[in-house]
């Protein structure tokens, strides 16, 4: 997937991953894609819930070697 920007939020604990994702998304233009890497397990449920709440689209998620990856499309 073609990501506009990659946010490395590994090692950050709740609430920082979502706070950073929101900040980055605010900088993007509609339709652009933010790829997020996190290790905080709480983000697994919270990032999709944030996307739903904020209207941004969660395109895909994956887990590799303990790193959670998400792709969000800016609404």
């Amino acid at each position: 997937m073609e990501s506009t920007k990659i946010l490395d939020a590994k090692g950050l604990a709740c609430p920082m991953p979502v706070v950073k994702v929101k900040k980055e998304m605010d900088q993007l233009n509609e339709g652009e894609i933010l790829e997020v890497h996190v290790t905080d397990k709480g983000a697994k449920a919270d990032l999709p819930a944030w996307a739903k709440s904020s209207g941004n689209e969660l395109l895909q998620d994956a887990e590799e070697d303990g790193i959670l990856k998400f792709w969000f499309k800016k609404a």
Partner: protein
Amino acid sequence: MSLKPMTAKELGKMVINREEIFILDVRNTDAFDDWKVEGEGVEIINKPYFDLIDGVDDIVGQLPEDKPLLVVCAKEGSSQFVAEQIVEATGRDTHYLVGGMKTWSEHLEPVKLGDLKDGGELYQFVRLGKGCLSYLVASDGEAAIIDSARTIEPYNEFLAEHNLTLKHVIDTHLHADHISGGRKLREKHGASYWLPPKDAEEVTFDFKPLEDGNDIKVGQTKVAIHPIYSPGHTIGSTSMVIDDQYLISGDILFVDSIGRPDLAGKAEDWVSDLRNSLYSIYAGLSGELYVLPAHFGKHEELDAQGRVMEKLSVLFEKNHGLNINDEEEFRKTVTEDLPPQPNAYQEIRQTNMGKINPDAEEQTEMEIGPNRCAVSG
């Protein structure tokens, strides 16, 4: 006016004393709907922290000024983040829950149930966050612990404070909702670990068989723990009569409901066992016995002192699960439309058998959420 920590112990006292508190739960809504802090004096709303990143103006109007305010989240970080903003916006005292719902899930509150005939005492350890109940029998400097929770520090502190030597650790059955602290307690105190043999066929460690006629003595004063085989929640489920006064019912009978037979995937097989245990074995016991279950389902089951107990005769009158005359209706009640199964129940059973050894963080994750061992409630 400032940001203040509140420990699980402080919150536990407030819940048991039925003090008024307003809780803002900032976890995601799925987690909140699954499980939350409950209590007589607890008023609670949910607003996820990620909807409050730009400010708390949306919710400050919803926070009553005449009650203490507590913000809770899963671990702690987000509740501090939101509580700080509330302090900035309103200037009021705002608490956050130390360790979040993770710590709340593990907190145990010991309450005394009563004196035993020969000078001993019986205590109930109430795990408010998860609805689990465990028991400590003390007599003549010795102790037995029944259905221990995973975190054993509260028991260790209690034993030290009361100068007790732990002699016996007993599980009424192989638990599926929480990880037993039995093995850890045995290792630390050198106590005997008793398990129903039919639930322990696959366990990977040594144990003593908890069986009919195999009475367990605590202290010199002959406080007898008398096991009664009562299958149904699991094939091995064993109840115990303590001091001819109390009936430890495990997950067979609760104050407001009865056990579910499906957590080992054998609902249909175990229905008739469950019915027989409740309608024959329990029906044959003295109605004067106080039933002490391994769980409560609703905070209303706690009495004014924070205890969960009721006379067997009262339960035969009031508990719906003991008043279903039709066998087919009983079968449907305990096998159909059941609540969701407890979080990670299969992994929890494997852990309690000693087959897998998750680390502490994984164990905490596995236990998150309510116990869900009852048919309803």
